[in-house]
């Protein structure tokens, strides 16, 4: 399927799905990776900030007041705690109530002034002897008789272990993500394959078909593909009908033309051997009549082929039947076929709208009209009107109408007798009937006091 040059121009379904999935995975992966790194950083920061606050609190707690002076007895435990980040250097400083450094590093970065509004611990990032570090500042208030004020403790630590932990967390999470992504890809491949399998089966079923086989595809397919199969089935149905029509046309033509052409040839043979001029003239006259009716037969057969082709393929549109009647009368064919015959047009003021193909309807009406001219008795009346919910396009003549035999055969494709003697009223009726049926109506044959009327009766359309 995908190998044919037509479908090569558009992406295969698998490629589309794979592309979509890759985009999804990449975007999702990037977003998740960023989130993972942020999470790792936050988790590491939280973990190591706890060490800082623990160490700072323990140092602050070790400050005591002896004889009016704050004395720091630096606890080893604070450093053991900080040593849980074994690769990091430690900065510390304790300042007395007067701001003088009691012990520790003399020149540590101080917290930004904006952060000092809170009374709780203040965390800040600053360099420690040229290496980025994280600091905490903690205060402890003294209200003794001989010492009152705030002792300040600053503890800092470089970031090696923090960054290592953040990386570790992120990498572990990414590993999980990667495994998950791979699993998703694998699953997606399986899912896509199983989802596309009905298409493959359909392709196999189509490929295995006999080229002549235009019957419906009966392979069971999922709902999404069913519309496609429906369309294919519809298309093949139309194709088959057209094939049929073509076949019919050919066999009809062969069948219906053989006899008149043979008769013509026989008469022409007779004419060439005839020596008596009177009888030869009569023979020639008969040949002429035969040719005319053969021409009409050909017309009708072609128009039937056209009609059958069109009613399957042409679009339905709103048609005013009055226009069709008017067009036929105005075309003036009757002046050629039956010069001198009286033809009337009977149409009203109100439009007679049906849904149909104007050309097919025109052909149908023209056939009926010619029938009336050929076989009926003048005056011929062509009309269009509305009866109840039915729109009608009719032809009426003053004669008795076709014989009971013709009426009985009405609707048959083979109107053998009519064709045989060149009187092809049956074929015209059959065309009209096909058109009427194609547009949801029927052909009505009516006898009345005024004569015989044949009407294409279609459901009226409210559309204009």
């Amino acid at each position, binding site marked *: 399927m995908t190998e044919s040059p037509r479908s090569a121009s558009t992406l295969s379904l698998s490629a589309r799905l794979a592309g979509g999935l890759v985009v999804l995975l990449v975007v999702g992966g990037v977003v998740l990776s960023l989130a993972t790194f942020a999470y790792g950083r936050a988790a590491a920061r939280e973990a190591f900030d706890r060490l800082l606050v623990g160490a700072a609190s323990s140092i602050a707690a070790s400050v005591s007041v002896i004889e009016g002076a704050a*004395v*720091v*007895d*630096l606890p*080893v435990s604070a*450093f053991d705690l900080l040593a849980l980040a*074994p690769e990091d*250097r430690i900065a510390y400083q304790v300042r007395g109530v007067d701001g003088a450094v009691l012990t*520790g590093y003399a020149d540590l970065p101080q917290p930004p002034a904006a952060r000092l509004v809170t009374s709780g611990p203040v965390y800040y990032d600053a360099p420690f*002897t040229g290496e980025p570090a994280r600091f905490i500042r903690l205060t402890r208030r003294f209200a003794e008789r001989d010492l009152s004020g705030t002792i300040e403790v600053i503890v800092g630590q470089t970031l090696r272990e923090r960054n290592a932990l953040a990386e570790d967390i992120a990498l572990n999470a990414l590993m999980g993500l990667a495994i998950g992504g791979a699993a998703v890809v694998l699953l997606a491949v399986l899912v896509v394959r199983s989802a596309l399998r009905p298409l493959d089966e359909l392709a196999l079923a189509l490929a295995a078909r006999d080229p002549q086989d235009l019957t419906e595809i009966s392979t069971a397919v999922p709902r999404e593909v069913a519309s496609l199969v429906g369309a294919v089935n519809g298309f093949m149905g139309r194709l088959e009908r057209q094939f049929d029509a073509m076949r019919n046309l050919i066999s009809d033509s062969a069948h219906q033309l053989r006899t008149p052409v043979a008769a013509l040839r026989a008469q022409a043979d007779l004419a060439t051997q005839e020596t008596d001029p009177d009888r030869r003239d009569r023979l020639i006259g008969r040949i002429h009549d035969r040719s005319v009716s053969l021409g009409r037969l050909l017309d009708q057969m072609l128009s039937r082929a056209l009609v059958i082709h069109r009613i399957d393929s042409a679009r339905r549109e709103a048609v005013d039947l009055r226009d069709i009647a008017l067009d036929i009368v105005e075309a003036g064919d009757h002046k050629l076929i039956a010069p001198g015959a009286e033809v009337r047009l009977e149409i009203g003021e109100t439009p007679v709208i049906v849904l149909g193909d104007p050309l097919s309807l025109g052909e149908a009406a023209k056939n009926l009209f010619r029938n009336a001219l050929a076989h009926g008795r003048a005056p011929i009346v062509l009309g269009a009107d509305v009866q109840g919910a039915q729109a009608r396009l009719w032809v009426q003549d003053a004669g008795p109408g076709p014989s009971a035999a013709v009426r009985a055969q009405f609707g048959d494709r083979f109107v053998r007798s009519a064709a045989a003697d060149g009187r092809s009223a049956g074929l015209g009726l059959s065309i009209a009937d096909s058109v009427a049926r194609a547009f949801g109506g029927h052909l009505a044959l009516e006898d009345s006091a005024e004569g015989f009327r044949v009407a294409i009766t279609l459901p009226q359309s409210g559309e204009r």
Partner: protein
Amino acid sequence: MIRLTLLLLCLALPARAQEVVRAFGPENALTRLVLRTTTDVDILAPTVEEFLAAHPGLAIVYEQWGSNALYQRSSEECATGESGADIVISSAVHQMIRLVNDRCAASWQSSFSTGLPDTLRWRDEIWGVTREPAVMVYNRSLVPPDQVPRTRFDLLDLLRPEDSRYAGRIATYEISQSGLGYLFAYMDSQEATTFGALMEAFARSGAVATCCSAEIIDGVQRGDYLIAYNILGSYAVTEALRDPTLGIVAPRDYTLVLSRALIFPGSRVRPEAGAFLDFLLSPAGQLSLAANNLAISADNPAINTEADAPDSARRLIPLAPALLVAMDRAKSERFLSDWRKTFAQ
């Protein structure tokens, strides 16, 4: 404050003077390493020569320093950014830890250096290269075998009687002058409550605090002191092998074990200097150190021959940032003032 000034004066005076300078290796060597160390040159010399034998074209200038002076100098050089030494090895490991914490040491990694246990290295900038126990030294001819102290409690018992013959004849390091002495005393104060009792007993009995391993061992040999406390095992064993009157005890309650710390001052390690560290940590280097009593195991024949000290009593001084507490100004001030109060009596 006056004490602090005195102390600083004490520290400052020898700060510009190295005690001994000796050059090893060929005079026309292309590369010359400067090694500053607190180790007596005679003790480390064989190891240095063994290293140079494997590295022709390399020379080492050996400078022997006092620990406080060495720290002072290294710290100053770190501040100015000009390093006068390629390798520093000090027994005052707390001072080396402080240098590392002050970002004064360069980083080095090799299969030997990373093979050290975590307690003997930090940040790949400081490594413990030796194993030297802090021991008690006594004069065999003056201390009867049944009075030889096996533990600190035994020592306390000897000092308990009013008329103890050990009164005034116990010696230990003067910790304000010796960084190593300070470290041992500080570790004692962290290790057990016996330290307080010992201080009190030293104070009551008039123990002597004086400078330097060699002098103290000399005093014991002469009989000026009967027992010396917290003497570095490497010197004691070396002397004891020469002089059988010298007895050595590794206390059985606990024995501090010092691992001399090596750092590369400055921001960059010269590959030859790194090779020296790798040699010290290699099996050959460790054998050489052991042969010179710088890597003393618990079963060294010179120590404690009469008794079997449990291995679990050995307390290695870990090269960890917790030693920064020993360098804390307030801490050391109070520690020294307490010490001085004890020995001023």
